[in-house]
């Protein structure tokens, strides 16, 4: 498992650095690109967790769709040059974030998780398909998600088109 361990560390560090870059870079465009890197790192993390299908979806949705959407928006709003400054709340925000991290870390490390020793299910694709669409699976959320997408599309149209 050493390989996975190394992969985790590498991906984790990359992900964190990319995330920090998103927050710290002043160029919006570069920040967006860092976000893509971060998404990719997360996709890698999924693979180390034996979630291959998810990794693929991550790449498709986040890298392929959301990032593109964001970059498009950046272009449309033409705020690239002015950059991405921080507001006056950065110190309290930083404190809150750090304390939040501390609290979560404390909770996570002090909890006895009911860790199962069973090996992960692989490959996941068909199993997921069964879970999502099969009998006794998550058909209800799927249906709701369909309607949700409808609502989102409607909304996006309403909001973006001129009055």
């Amino acid at each position, binding site marked *: 498992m050493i390989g996975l361990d190394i992969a985790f560390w590498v991906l984790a560090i990359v992900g964190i650095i990319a995330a920090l870059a998103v927050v710290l870079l002043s160029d919006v465009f570069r920040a967006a690109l860092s976000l893509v890197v971060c998404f990719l790192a997360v996709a890698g993390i999924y693979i180390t967790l034996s979630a291959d299908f998810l990794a693929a979806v991550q790449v498709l949705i986040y890298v392929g769709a959301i990032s593109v959407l964001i970059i498009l928006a950046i272009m449309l709003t033409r705020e690239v040059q002015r950059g991405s400054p921080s507001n006056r709340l950065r110190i309290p925000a930083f404190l*809150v974030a750090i304390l939040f991290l501390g609290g979560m870390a404390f909770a996570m490390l002090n909890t006895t998780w009911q860790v199962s020793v069973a090996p992960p299910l692989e490959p996941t694709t068909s199993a997921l398909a069964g879970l999502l669409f099969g009998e006794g699976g998550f058909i209800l959320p799927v249906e709701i998600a369909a309607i949700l997408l409808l609502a989102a599309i409607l909304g996006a149209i309403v909001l973006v088109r001129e009055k």
Partner: protein
Amino acid sequence: MPYQLVWLIFLLPFFSFAIISLFFRPFLNHKPKLGGYITIASLTASLGLSVWALMEVMAAPGHELPIPDINWVIIEGGITIHLGLMVDSLTAVMLIVVSLVSLMVQIYSQGYMAGDPGYHRYFAFMSLFTGSMLALVLADNLLFMYVFWEMVGLCSYLLIGFWFHRPAAANAAKKAFIVTRLGDFGFLAAILLLFFNTGTFDIAELHSLAITGALAGTTLTWAAIGIFSGAVGKSAQFPLHTWLPDAMEGPTPVSALIHAATMVAAGVFLVARCYPLFSHSVEALTTVAVIGGFTAIFAATMGLVMTDIKRVLAYSTISQLGYMMLGLGTGGIAIGIFHLFNHAFFKALLFLGAGSVNHATGTFDIREMGGLRKFMPWTYATFVIASLSIVGIWPLSGFWSKEEILASSLGSQPILFYLAMLTVFMTAFYMFRVVFLTFGGKYRGGGSEAHGKPHESPSVMVMPMVVLAVLAVVSGFWNVTGGFGQFLGHGETHSFAQGFFGILTHPLPWLSLILAGLGILLAYAIYSVKWLSAERIGSMFKPLYTLFYRKYWFDELYENVFVGKALVGGLFAGLQVFDTYGVDGAVNGVASATVAGGRAIRKAHTGQLQLYGLFIGIGILAIILCLYFFG
């Protein structure tokens, strides 16, 4: 006749009041005399019934008539109050005094009040007063006594303030009511105390409880002193005497009836009525005697220097009431009440005389009168008779009762006796000072030019004065035989001649007669023949004169210092400030603090969405921390 008719004695005047107040204003104002006739008719009937009642009482065994009660308020297990009448010798005497004097005064008022726009109001109030006063003396329990006690106070208030457009009258009325109410406060407290300890308001029951000793000790003393404080207020005894001189702002017949003959004597009657309560408490009895004795001389000193004829008479009334108290405190019911009985007639007469004089001259200031003897002989004659009577000249009525008081005080309170003797001298002096200044010498002009020449009053005024003058002479004869005393419960009788002349065999009457004579002489010397200059004597005793003339500064002390500055201006004003800024300020403060809090917290909503987000974060952290520490 059935005894229930006694109810009519006081109900008749009430009917008269009701009829006049309901039907005569404003509909029949063009028949001004009618109201007076109704009053007089009802009073005549009352007087007749009173006389009848007196006869019955005299004939009755134990001098008491049984009269059935009416239930007033009954709360089972708590309180039972009956409405009842008590007709015994004391009541019978008082009934006669009240109805007789009242009748005389009403007749007199026919003339005196003629033409006054408040004519009907006057007679309505007078009826109400007489009814209340009669009911007061008839009441068989303390509560009802208190009820009518307050009612006569109300009538006094209304009649003092009869000419309410004069601020002085309105003030005097208010003062009279409040000062007497201060005394009533003690009376009411005593009633409560007695009820608390005995469970009854009934006077007869209280008597027997006091006599058997079931009611004794400090309770009895305090109850008696409480009752006495009511009497002090009503009878204008020191230290609640200040209202009576001011009360002279009322019409003079009112002063004659209420503030000389009857209502102010109600205090004396009250003490007499509750006498067993006093007689079984040495402290209470002594208090009565001391206050009475002191008031007698205290008021007399002020009477020496007053220039308003009615005020002189007012102080004389206070002084005489003090005598009565002294008599009650040292002797007994009969002695005090006998003086009350006599005093009622001659003092009423004096006031009516003063009214007559005023009617003639338009003023009450004796310095502006003089020489009226020629113009109004009837008034003069009756006034002098009354003056002699009050001074205590043998054989006029005042002599008889005053002698008894002096004798009894000598027996038990020698110091008070000397004061009383001194008072005799003063009484003589100030009364004849009035007589000489008013009737002697030359006419000095009167109140206003417009009034014209003085003249004798109409016969409707003179006639009652004559009746009263006769009474002022003869009323004392009742006890020459000791008959009055026996009627009221103690003493033995003897033949008339024995009493009439026998008294002159004792040294005491002579002493007082000499003192009285000296007083008259001094007044004659100063005011009639002017051997001595009033001014010189006045300046000689300047400080004393000022002290008397300013009434020992009691009015100032009460009104300005105590009530004005300390209470209303000081304590109450302080409370008012406290109420506005303390209590209400706290209320408003809480409200404005809430509003201010709202404004302050509102500032947190800056419109910055990330600040809102930050609050979410902080909130979560706070919850986590709380759970960590308290969970």
